[in-house]
């Protein structure tokens, strides 16, 4: 009676099943939409976002700026919520 259980192992994972969230449809135009620009606080991300704001404003979008406290941590839940209720589109600048 040495090995009756050796072919059964315990699942080491979190056993969670990913939930699928439907994406919002892609808008045909940004005119009149509110576009959130999320600066993740990495160096020079603001340079990129400044330029995006100019271009988006020219296209008739209403631009709102947001900023994470630090790039090393996920965006705080309150910030995510604020963006979700205020914006129809969000652009996150990731790179240095």
């Amino acid at each position, binding site marked *: 009676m*040495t090995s009756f*259980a050796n072919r*059964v*192992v*315990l*699942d080491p994972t*979190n056993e*969670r099943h990913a939930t699928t969230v439907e994406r919002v449809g892609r808008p045909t135009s940004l005119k009149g939409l509110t576009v959130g620009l999320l600066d993740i606080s990495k160096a020079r991300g603001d340079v990129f976002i400044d330029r995006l704001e100019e271009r988006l404003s020219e296209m008739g979008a209403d631009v709102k700026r947001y900023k994470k406290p630090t790039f*090393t941590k*996920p965006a705080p839940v309150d910030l995510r919520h604020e963006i979700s209720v205020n914006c129809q589109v969000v652009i996150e600048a990731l790179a240095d």
Partner: protein
Amino acid sequence: MALPVLPNGLVIIVKRECETCRMVVPVIEQLNNGSLPVTIYVQDDPAFPESLAPIHDADLSISWHHDIETVPTVLRIENGVEVARTVGWVRDEWHRVTKQSSLGPDLSAFRPGCGSLSVDPDLVDELRVRFGATTLSARRVDIAEAEDEFEAMFDRGWTDGLPVIPPTEQRVMRMLTGTTRQPTDVVAIVPPDLVEITIEKVAINAVMAGCKPEYLPWVIAGLEAACNDTFNIHGVLATTMPVGPVIVCNGPGTRAIGMNSGMNVFGQGNRANLTIGRAIQLIIRNIGGGRPGEVDRATHGNPGKLSFCFAEDEIGSPWTTLAESRGLSPTVDAVTVFPGEGPRCVVDQLARDPESLTNTFAACLRTLHNPKSVLAFDAIVVMGPEHARVYAEAGWDRDRVLEEIHARLQIPGSELIRGAGGIAEGVPERLNGLTLPKFRPGGLLLVHAGGGAGLFSAIIGGWANGDVGSQPVTKEVLP
């Protein structure tokens, strides 16, 4: 499983392999002719004793559920309840339990029994699963007969790239004997998926990493230290920089579980060092969902992301311990987690005075990540014993060593601004007139470790420090 009910009268558990059991057969025959009914359970040979129609406790359920640790054991059962018990052969005790007299007149008065098969170290793990494991709640995953169980672990994405021990229920149950905490206790919320992890899941991953049960409290403490906003394992995992959790262990327990703090302290060969750190990283992967190429975006990574865990050499140290410097008693066990890259060597074979040696440390530390980078990164100095001796002979304590290094790393802004020295990297021009320290206050940690020969030390470079990144965290290891 319900407790198997024993018949009223006398119940005697024996095994043929036990000399005492064989010796008392005539006594049992005497009892069998007495007023109380006698039932005999035998653990090994179903035919023993031949004269007495024994019942074979083939799966040891009678022995397990009635806590039989020694054979022979004699029980007196009244109305289905045990009212008296004795083990081995002690004539007076047998008289008391059986309510008879003049038993075994030819035998000596006393002979110890033997170990019950139900507590045999080779069987006990499996019996624990067979009879007592209903508390574990993890999903059971069947491995096909034709499947290689080690390949199966790879196929399911559960490994760090090296083979893991398949976490069978009996191995996990054995691992859980290493902690007093309940399998259902929640230890931490593990990034990046922010999933609660229970002691049971810690134990499963600790089995896979190759831990012994006595390492489990260290794994638990390491997780508690890493999975919080202060240490920020999320960022340590996700960063493009080559860092992972470096775990420095302190306290008498490091020696009790055989951790290495000496020769080849960061290297291969020590099970505790390698598997404690590995278990924590497996948990980040398997529970937190943190996998390379997904949330882990490291440009290069480093081999220490498999495991980078070691003990401080406290016995040979001239200084207080790292954990003590961080506010804990030197008598307790503790882990300190630090977001670190791979170690680099500091060579100075000629310095025999502390000033000269400190100049070497300062010059080497100046180059950390970039000679023009200041304040952004912490570091651990792992002082080798031969270097520490130079300081000990000069009477420099831990604080003095760190102060002297800091004093030598006050750098003129003119050397640090962008473009200075023909290097674009640097601090903004507006800091030109200032003097800036390489390290923030408290940004250097000092640990004593390494082999007794070699005028070397090591530096472990850190990652984005402070509230924007990661702070080292020290936690007590509890049973």
